[in-house]
């Protein structure tokens, strides 16, 4: 029967066809090269151009990296070694500076005999983060995550442990009073009461009580002043604290912006728009200079604390907008389903809305975090020793390293890249893990 004829008579299929493998020419490396690099004249031209650019870049950078010097005591010695080994015209990187100044890049002017304290705090950071970041870690470890901020601040700044114990006691007391009051007086009265109590506790109770306890059982470690902090210790302290603080604040601001209550809504909108409309440096200057004018004369606010607060508020405004995007992407039906099951506003937000909105917003949130972490180098403008500008300037004012230019920036840049790349990879892992809608 001819093919054409076969189509014109009634037809019933008796056996179903099994799936078969694609033809050979559709697979393999040659196929990939042809598809991606040489598929047309334009593509061929771009491939060649790309290879040429790569060649030029590597020709300039590779010898410089290959001629690196790790053992020297000054830039002059470095140059001498390069000239002796590779010829008078050769250039080479002088990593010896990093070798010598490595502790300063890490800790700034933190007392050398106390380096173990920030190191311990940094190691414990991973213990505290593990249960937050990964689902396989035992849940009780979350209690350690909750206490970690106080523990870390105590390790970094030193002083009496009782001060922090009193802070924790104040938080616990406030929470207990809130839980008791919220049933009888309602959320607004109980919330106000809690805030007033916390403020009163921190002003009138923390210092005297911890002082008294210190006399009974002394438990203080050497205090370290904020101006001794520098390098990556400073960046990571500011970065991690601001990241940790800006996410919850950003969530509240995003919810505020979508609130039905006009006062809450306009406060949230006003805050977000003002903060986003002002450069971070302005905010930091406000923190370091102006804030002091508005505070009572004898109140001394630690400069790092001020910078952390400002960076947190700044990042929170951006994160609020990212989360608002996630909220807007959720279908109305999700809110209605939660409502129809009798959930109240906070239950619906916590159990239904936020898990989904935050999942959608992960890439944006992590972008904001990465931006925030890199922005911590801007604290150089308020006379703090950030690793990029602050420490590098100190190093270069040493007569031995005067004139060194590329190496500190390449080094600091590489460390920032590692940390930021790590955050980015984590966000991709998280997205994969939470991908459950199978759409």
């Amino acid at each position, binding site marked *: 029967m001819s093919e054409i004829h076969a189509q014109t008579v009634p037809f019933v299929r008796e056996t179903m066809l099994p799936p078969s493998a694609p033809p050979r020419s559709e697979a393999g490396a040659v196929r990939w090269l042809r598809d991606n690099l040489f598929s047309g004249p334009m593509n061929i031209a771009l491939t060649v151009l790309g290879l040429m650019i790569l060649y030029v870049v590597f020709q300039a950078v590779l010898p410089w990296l290959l001629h690196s010097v790790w053992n020297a005591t000054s830039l002059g010695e470095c140059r001498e070694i390069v000239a002796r080994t590779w010829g008078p015209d050769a250039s080479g990187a002088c990593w010896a500076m990093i070798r010598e100044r490595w502790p300063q890049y890490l800790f700034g002017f933190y007392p050398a005999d106390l380096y173990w304290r920030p190191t311990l705090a940094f190691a414990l950071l991973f213990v505290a983060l593990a249960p937050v970041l990964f689902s396989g870690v035992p849940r009780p470890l979350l209690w350690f995550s909750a206490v970690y901020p106080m523990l870390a601040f105590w390790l970094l700044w030193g002083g009496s442990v009782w001060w922090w114990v009193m802070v924790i006691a104040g938080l616990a007391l406030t929470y207990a009073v809130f839980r008791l009051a919220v049933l009888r007086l309602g959320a607004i009265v109980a919330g106000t009461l809690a805030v007033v109590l916390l403020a009163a506790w921190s002003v009138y109770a923390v210092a005297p009580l911890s002082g008294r306890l210190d006399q009974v059982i002394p438990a203080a470690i050497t205090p370290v002043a904020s101006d001794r902090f520098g390098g990556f210790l400073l960046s990571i302290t500011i970065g991690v604290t601001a990241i940790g603080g800006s996410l919850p604040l950003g969530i509240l601001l995003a919810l505020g912006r979508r609130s039905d209550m006009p006062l809450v809504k306009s406060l949230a909108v006003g805050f977000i728009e003002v903060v986003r409309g002002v450069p971070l440096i302005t905010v930091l200057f406000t923190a370091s200079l102006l804030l002091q004018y508005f505070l009572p004369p004898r109140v001394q606010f630690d400069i790092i604390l001020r910078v952390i607060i400002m960076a947190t508020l700044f990042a929170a405004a951006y994160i609020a907008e990212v989360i608002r995007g996630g909220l807007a992407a959720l279908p109305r039906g999700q809110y209605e389903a939660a409502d*129809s099951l*009798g959930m109240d506003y906070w239950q619906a937000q916590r159990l239904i809305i936020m898990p*989904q909105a935050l999942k959608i917003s992960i890439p944006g949130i992590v972008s904001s975090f990465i931006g925030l972490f890199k922005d911590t180098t801007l604290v150089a403008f308020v006379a703090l020793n950030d690793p990029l500008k602050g420490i590098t300037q100190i190093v270069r004012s040493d007569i031995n390293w005067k004139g060194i230019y590329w190496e500190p920036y390449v080094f600091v840049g590489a460390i920032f890249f590692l940390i930021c790349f790590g955050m980015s990879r984590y966000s991709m892992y998280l997205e994969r893990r939470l991908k459950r*809608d199978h759409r």
Partner: protein
Amino acid sequence: MSEGTQRRIDRSQMRVSDEIAIQITAMNKWYGNFHVLRDIDLTVHKGERIVVCGPSGSGKSTLIRCINRLEEHQQGRIVVDGTELTSDLKNIDKVRSDVGMVFQHFNLFPHLTILENCTLAPIWVRKVPKKEAEDTAMHFLRKVRIPEQAHKYPGQLSGGQQQRVAIARSLCMKPRIMLFDEPTSALDPEMIKEVLDTMIELAQEGMTMICVTHEMGFAQAVANRVVFMDQGQIVEQNSPQEFFNHPKSERTKLFLSQILGH
């Protein structure tokens, strides 16, 4: 007409009591200047199965969404199970937890498993212990005939299965009244039957139901009253026999000729 309704329906449990489940009196609602619901009076007794039908835009969905306050009414009274719906949030949450709702687009929570979808509200709203909530959930999942899907996510299920999960999720709250908002309109024809069968079973057990649907076969088989709405008003309500065989209003006749004509 759907095939699902051709089977024999056991009406022995489907008794209407004298107790009033829902009372709506002189209720009006506007969207801006648009008068969506006009002077609605409707009394639903315990055990009634009411089908609400009408052309699109007639306000039938809005009406049942007012019953659990997904929409706010501006005039008149709605009393559900003795609780009047006002702006008091406590009353609203109470009514909502006692009234189950099934949506056209299922509205399952995609980030939770089927089982978690069913246990979430009992655990957090009713404060039921987790184990007990899971037992209840499995009971109702068996009832809607998908217990084997309990640990999958909604995105892995077919439309009909998702809608049955949505029904089970509502039942887990042990509601006294169930509202259905076009539960089969978003489904492929093959899947309509399985959802209607579940609803019929529910009716046979004596659940008070209000159902917005275009499934006239379901209405004839299960409903004890059909409410026809047009332009935000109740135009006609009657028993299904009378409604389909002897419609009184011209508007009803036109509507029936359009949906049954083909």
